[in-house]
């Protein structure tokens, strides 16, 4: 290995690591607030990336049907609950949030798709389609189970993953898609050539991480999210609506997933199920960081990205094996360090 290859591998590893770091943060956030291990995180990547590619080709992505039908289902569940509690004043809000908004987005996308608008408008459309899916998924699958054990939530999470990836196959088909890069330039930095797209990925990840930090440290809503994660009863007692914090955390996770999908859609070819593997690596990154602190999770994800790029050079056939095996020593250490505590049931 010479310096050229080394630097190239580092660039590749850091680019992927930045994406994994984002996903690790989203997974940690969702787990901390709702105790859901968010397996379907990867589907948001897929949906965003493939929707962007389809919009670029002037085709209408099937995401709008998932959004519209999902919105209707969430509205039905929420509406039924409101009717049973005779809380009529909640109905207009439910209709606006779960029926009017998703349908409006769906029609907007259907109208815009054949017109092949500017790339940044397409990016905004993708975000508008994918991000609302987060709260909708939470409302349908997880909110009714808010007090269930971690294991039950995990099983539901797997089910949601299979449903979403099945829908992905139905609406996007089995072929791989790739979008065009935002910025085609390459920079010479000494001996190594850096693509503008990977700079873009790293910059966007850093920006998002700083944004999340500001949210959690300096806004009352971010603090409310953390408070819910620390003590649900305490959070309810100070008047934090815990259902809302669940939806907010899923919204953030969907946003992060969608941004990751948009960022990588031009770097790699994505298939209907590619997101799952990427999401899983974000999860491994979070585990490498001990599944406890945000900076450690981000660092773990970065290490994982580098490990992946170097193992693809030295032992490319075992790349995934090496990446996923790296979780084992960490798990052993985690389980040795913490004495076994029975899960705290409410």
């Amino acid at each position, binding site marked *: 290995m010479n310096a050229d290859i080394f630097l190239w591998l580092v660039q590749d590893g850091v680019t992927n690591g930045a994406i994994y770091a984002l996903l690790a943060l989203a997974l940690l956030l969702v787990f901390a607030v709702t105790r859901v291990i968010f397996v379907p995180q990867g589907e948001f990547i897929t949906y965003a990336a493939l929707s962007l590619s389809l919009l670029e080709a002037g085709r209408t992505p099937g995401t709008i049907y998932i959004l519209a039908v999902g919105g209707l289902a969430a509205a039905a569940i929420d509406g039924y609950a409101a009717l049973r509690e005779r*809380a009529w004043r909640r109905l207009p809000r439910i209709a606006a949030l779960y029926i009017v908004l998703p349908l409006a987005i769906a029609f907007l996308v259907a109208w815009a798709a054949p017109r092949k608008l500017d790339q940044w408008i397409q990016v905004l459309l993708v975000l508008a389609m994918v991000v609302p899916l987060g709260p909708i998924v939470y409302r349908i699958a997880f909110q009714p189970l808010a007090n269930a054990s971690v294991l039950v939530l995990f099983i539901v999470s797997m089910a949601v993953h299979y449903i979403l990836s099945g829908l992905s196959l139905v609406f996007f088909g089995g072929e791989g898609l790739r979008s065009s890069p935002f910025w085609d330039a390459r920079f010479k930095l000494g001996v190594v050539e850096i693509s503008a797209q990977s700079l873009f990925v790293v910059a966007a990840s850093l920006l998002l991480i700083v944004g999340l930090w500001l949210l959690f440290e300096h806004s009352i809503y971010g603090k409310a999210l953390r408070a819910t994660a620390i003590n649900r009863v305490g959070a309810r007692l100070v008047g934090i609506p815990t259902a809302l914090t669940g939806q907010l955390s899923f919204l953030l996770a969907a946003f992060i997933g969608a941004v990751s999908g948009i960022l990588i859609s031009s770097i790699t070819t994505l298939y209907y199920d590619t997101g799952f593997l990427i999401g899983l690596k974000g999860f491994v990154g979070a585990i490498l960081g001990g599944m406890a602190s945000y900076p450690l999770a981000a660092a773990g994800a970065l290490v994982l990205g580098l490990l992946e790029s170097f193992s693809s050079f030295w032992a490319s056939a075992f790349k995934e094996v090496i990446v996923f095996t790296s979780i084992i020593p960490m798990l052993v250490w985690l389980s040795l360090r913490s004495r076994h505590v029975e899960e705290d049931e409410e």
Partner: protein
Amino acid sequence: MSAALEIDGLSVAYGKVEALHRATLRVNEGAIATVIGPNGAGKSTLLAAIMGLLPSKGILRYAGALLDGSSTEERVARGMCLVPERRELFAELSVHDNLLLGAFHRRGDGARALAADFAEVYARFPRLKERSGQLAGTLSGGERQMLALGRALMAKPRLLLLDEPSLGLAPRVVRETFHIIADLKRTGVSMLLVEQNARAALQVADYAYVLEVGDIVLEGPAAELAGNPRVVETYLGLSSAAR
């Protein structure tokens, strides 16, 4: 006198086991009512049901309006606040952030109103001011109780529910706590106080109820109940022996 809280025939069941059986009680506006009774009598269950943390049957009326089907956060927004037995603080957040979140339902009130409330709470609990940057989980038992009370005060409650505020505290801190409770009454806050320390509770309260295994077995003005032979024998005698 108008009632801050009226409870009529309130029952709470954990599965098939009834923990509270058709309890009826009221807290007058600006007064302190206390519920005394042994461990496991259903006192904490009563408070949790009042806050909507547990589903219950029966009638709950707050400031004249029914609480039917309203969520905990709606009850908090309407001025009810519970200081729970386990304090339920946010251990990994700073003392300051715990207090700030106490005012979560007043987040639209503006920075000036909050600053005034912070100043008030810090004046009442100077210890919290010294430790405002410290994580809540690192506080001592007495400081935690102060923080739980301070967090509740940040919510500007009209009805304060206190669950065993003296539990696990040193006698000096207990006295301080009851001093603060009496002080709060002067500011017009109505309170429902649940206590095992019957002596202190009967001293500070206006009206008292005795709860035993899910049933209210005795009630009356606090001063009267403090002289009731049954109360003296079961609760006052016991609590002085324990101390």
